[in-house]
C-alpha cells in the first residue's frame, strides 16, 4: 500500500562506469534520495549493466573505485536493482559476472535477500511505464 505523497522514482542507468562521471554521480543522487522515503528502483540497461560487474580495480587509473558502494544500498533501504537480461547477453555477460548485492528484509526476520533482479526487456519496459519520476543517467 502506497502512503500518500510517496512517488515511484526510477533511476535509469545506461552508461558504463569510469569513462564518464554519470554512473558515480547517479549513485550519489540515489544515496541522498534514499532519505526522502520514496519508492525507489534502479534500472540497469545498455552499458549501465557494466556498473555492476565484479572485480573492478581502479588502482592503475587512479580514479576512485565506487563499485563497493552499490553493496551499501541495502542499508539505505534501496533494494530494487533491476538489470536487463538482453543488455547483459548483448555484452557477453551473465548474472554470475555481477557482484553480489544483498539487503536485510525487515519483514522477514532480517533475512538476507538479493537486491539484483534480472528481468527481460519487456519487463523493463513495464517497469519504466509504472513510474512517477524517471531520472536518467
Amino acid at each position, binding site marked *: 500500500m502506497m502512503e500518500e505523497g510517496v512517488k515511484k522514482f526510477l533511476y535509469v542507468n545506461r552508461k558504463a562506469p569510469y569513462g564518464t562521471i554519470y554512473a558515480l554521480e547517479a549513485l550519489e543522487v540515489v544515496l541522498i534520495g534514499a532519505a526522502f522515503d520514496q519508492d525507489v528502483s534502479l534500472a540497469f540497461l545498455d552499458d549501465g549493466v557494466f556498473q555492476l560487474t565484479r572485480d573492478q580495480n581502479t588502482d592503475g587509473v587512479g580514479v576512485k573505485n565506487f563499485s563497493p558502494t552499490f553493496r551499501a544500498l541495502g542499508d539505505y533501504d534501496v533494494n530494487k536493482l533491476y538489470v536487463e537480461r538482453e543488455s547483459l547477453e548483448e555484452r557477453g555477460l551473465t548474472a554470475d559476472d555481477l557482484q553480489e548485492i544483498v539487503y536485510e528484509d525487515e519483514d522477514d526476520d532480517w533475512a538476507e535477500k538479493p537486491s539484483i533482479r534480472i528481468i527481460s526487456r519487456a519487463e*523493463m*519496459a513495464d517497469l519504466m511505464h509504472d513510474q512517477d519520476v524517471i531520472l536518467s*543517467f
Partner: protein
Amino acid sequence: MSTLHTVNKSPFATQSLLSCINHVKDGDAILLIEDGVYGAAAGTGVSDAVAGKAGSVKFYVLGPDLEARGIPATRLLEGVEVVDYAGFVGLAVEHDRAQAWL
C-alpha cells in the same frame, strides 16, 4: 497512462534511439530533439526501425532543431510530426511522465 520519450542523440552515434524504440509501450510518444532529429529523416540506416515502430507509437521531431540542421520537412519519414517548443510542452503535459534517453 503513457510516456513521452525524448531522444537527443544522433542514431548514428549512439544506441539511444534504438534502445528507446525497444522499450516504448503502445500509445507512447517519441520526440526527437537536438542531434536526435537526424533519426527522423527518410532513407537512412535507421528509417526502417523508426517506420516499423511508427504504427504503435507516435513520432515527433522538434522543428527548431530540424531547421538548425538544414533538414527540410520534405525529407522526413512519413508520419513524423513537427512540433515547436510549445508543442514540446504540450506533449509533456499530455503524457503522464517524461523519460529522457540521455
